[in-house]
């Protein structure tokens, strides 16, 4: 027993040997080291992979164009295996051993929350591309995000359902294991009720579910005017097909998780005439978006999802912040991030507000054939 503890102590010493205690500067003459931590294995690997592809594309472009202030970007990525303890370990390793200059990640809020205190502690700016839980950026003044918050997006969808789709009765089908899904569902429900509508059904499913017939039957029995599906494209495509198979033909409505070129083919036509909110609309003919979509398609063979787009933007946000700061100094980069205004990314034009969250408008799109038709833009001021 004492031996066992002795062995542990020895092991600790062995681990300690050869490791420096000082946090590296994160850059040298030629390179700046950026850290990325997303789940590229485990149950949410799809989303981490998409994000990583977007990040790698942006880095490739920036390096080809000469890097950030003359320094090439070096990316250090650790997998978080869809587990918060691995997220915390990855963050600690990025911060203290690799000494990254700025960290990017994670997708799931649970993992961002586990990692954020580490980066905050060492004064390394962390930017999450897609963690929507409001508490993520409350972990400290070095923690930022560039995606929507649940409250804005959920409320925007509710406003759209009410005013544009003229819906009085809404049903919600949420993934009860996913904070993004339940967050959107909660704020949609609250806002929809506040505007005088009724939520006739609020059904849930477990993550990994592929058979939604039970929930669809319940929703159909309440004959809603619209069904809100706060989920990712893979679930949305399946749910839509099962709704249609049971003869539930009302419009379906979703958030930015729907964005993917897989959405329409996977749904096999079941999503025709449905709506979702997104960061950008391809129909906008925004040159920046078009170039991004083309470059992504060329590199990976398919169109980017919203997660890939957010991953792409997060690198450019880092570049912009370093350029605004004027030098490679983490505190100054942090200040530059906090003051970021009118950043034009592929996920729209946005400001960073006083809560260190992105403030941007949402584009509501209608699915018509293979295309997403732009319907209208909802600004943050409209739902507040």
């Amino acid at each position, binding site marked *: 027993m004492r031996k066992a503890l002795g062995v542990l102590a020895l092991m600790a010493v062995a681990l300690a040997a050869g490791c420096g205690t000082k946090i590296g500067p994160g850059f040298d003459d030629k390179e700046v080291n950026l850290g990325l931590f997303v789940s590229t294995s485990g149950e949410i690997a799809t989303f981490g992979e998409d994000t990583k592809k977007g990040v790698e594309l942006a880095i490739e472009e920036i390096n080809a164009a000469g890097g950030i202030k003359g320094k090439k970007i070096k990316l250090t990525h650790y997998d978080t295996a869809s587990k918060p303890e691995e997220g915390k370990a990855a963050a600690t390793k990025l911060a203290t051993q690799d000494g990254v200059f700025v960290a990017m990640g994670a997708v799931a809020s649970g993992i961002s929350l586990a990692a954020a205190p580490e980066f905050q502690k060492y004064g390394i700016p962390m930017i999450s591309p897609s963690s929507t839980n409001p508490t993520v950026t409350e972990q400290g003044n070095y923690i930022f995000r560039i995606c929507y918050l649940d409250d804005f997006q959920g409320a925007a969808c509710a406003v759209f359902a009410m005013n544009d789709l003229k819906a009085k009765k809404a049903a919600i089908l949420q993934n009860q294991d996913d904070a993004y899904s339940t967050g959107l569902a909660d704020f949609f429900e609250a806002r929809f009720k506040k505007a005088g509508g009724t939520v006739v059904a609020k059904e849930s499913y477990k993550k*990994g579910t592929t058979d939604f017939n039970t929930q669809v039957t319940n929703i159909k029995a309440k004959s809603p005017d619209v069904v809100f599906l706060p989920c990712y494209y893979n679930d949305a495509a399946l749910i839509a097909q099962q709704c249609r198979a049971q003869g539930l033909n009302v419009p379906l409505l979703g958030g930015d998780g729907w964005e993917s070129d897989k959405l329409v*083919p*996977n749904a*096999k036509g079941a999503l025709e005439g449905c709506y979702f909110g997104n960061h950008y609309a391809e129909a906008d003919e925004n040159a920046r978006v078009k170039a991004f979509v083309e470059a992504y398609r060329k590199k990976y063979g*398919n169109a980017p999802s919203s997660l890939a787009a957010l991953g792409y933007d997060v690198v450019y946000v880092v570049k912009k912040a370093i350029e605004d700061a004027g030098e490679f100094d983490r505190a100054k980069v942090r200040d530059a991030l906090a003051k970021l205004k009118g950043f034009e990314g592929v996920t729209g034009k946005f400001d960073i507000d006083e809560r260190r969250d992105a403030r941007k408008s949402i584009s509501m799109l209608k699915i018509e054939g*293979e295309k997403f038709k732009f319907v209208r833009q909802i600004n943050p001021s409209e739902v507040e």
Partner: protein
Amino acid sequence: MQLLLESGDFLARLLQQCANGVAKGSVYALVAVGYTMVYGVLQLINFAHSDVYMLGAYFSYYPARWLGYMPDGAEKPKVPLYVLGLAFAFAVTACACTGMLIERLAYRPLRNASRLAALITAIGVSIFLQNAGQMVFTSEVKSFPRYVDQTSVPLGPIAVANTSLIIVVVAALMVGGLHLFVQRTRTGAAMRACSHDMRTARLMGVNVNATISLTFAIGSAMAAVGGMLIAMDQPRLTPTMGLLMGLKAFVAAVLGGIGSIPGAALGGLLLGVAESVVGTWNTTYADAVAFVALIVVLLVKPSGILGKAGREKV
């Protein structure tokens, strides 16, 4: 009158939920059969079984893709019947081989070790297959070829997808056929003998290794069919798609009495129907209720519904 109308609606809804549950339960049953067969012979919870199910879905996806029926992005062409047959044959064969290979490499060396050692290698194989699957297939969500056009079939007051009907019919045929095979044929008798007492079976001239290999092959083939059927009905392939299905099917196998093939079928159907019917009132807690029901059933019938009560040798 109003009340009557509502109760009529409710009945229709309940009926619809039962139909949903039967479709869901049929797939549970198909996958549960694999768990139960391996358990019957080796007393091993074959954790990797749900990942063989995942492989089955992927293996039935690739033939269509190789033959050009799965172009990315564009509208998918209808796949001719011979490709479906090809995909089916390929998935079943490849999964059966995978199953036998797993048994040969990871379980057979541990046959005389404690059951838990084999359980851990089974968990290891499961994690390995998921991650190797991710390396080979990538984590990108894959859709499925249009082997069958999904349409809604009206059955009186309810409507079901034709793919769900296919699932129920195929599952019933496969499980029924397997039951007959195990009960009526000589090979089946050898399987039952191995499950009863492996040593005595060997003394009686049964080739135990071959029989166990066959058990894995059949179980894996059933999982492949399950994977293919579910991918037709719910086209979404990911390397981790086996996780939830494995959990449910495993629970179904135990519920029915692990080791018994009719038990696995019954357990699967019961679990599917219970989830759907409870879901009529509340889908949030449907799974929790299903698990409570499971625990209660086990307390009343400690070795599952159709399981043989364990006799204790004194």
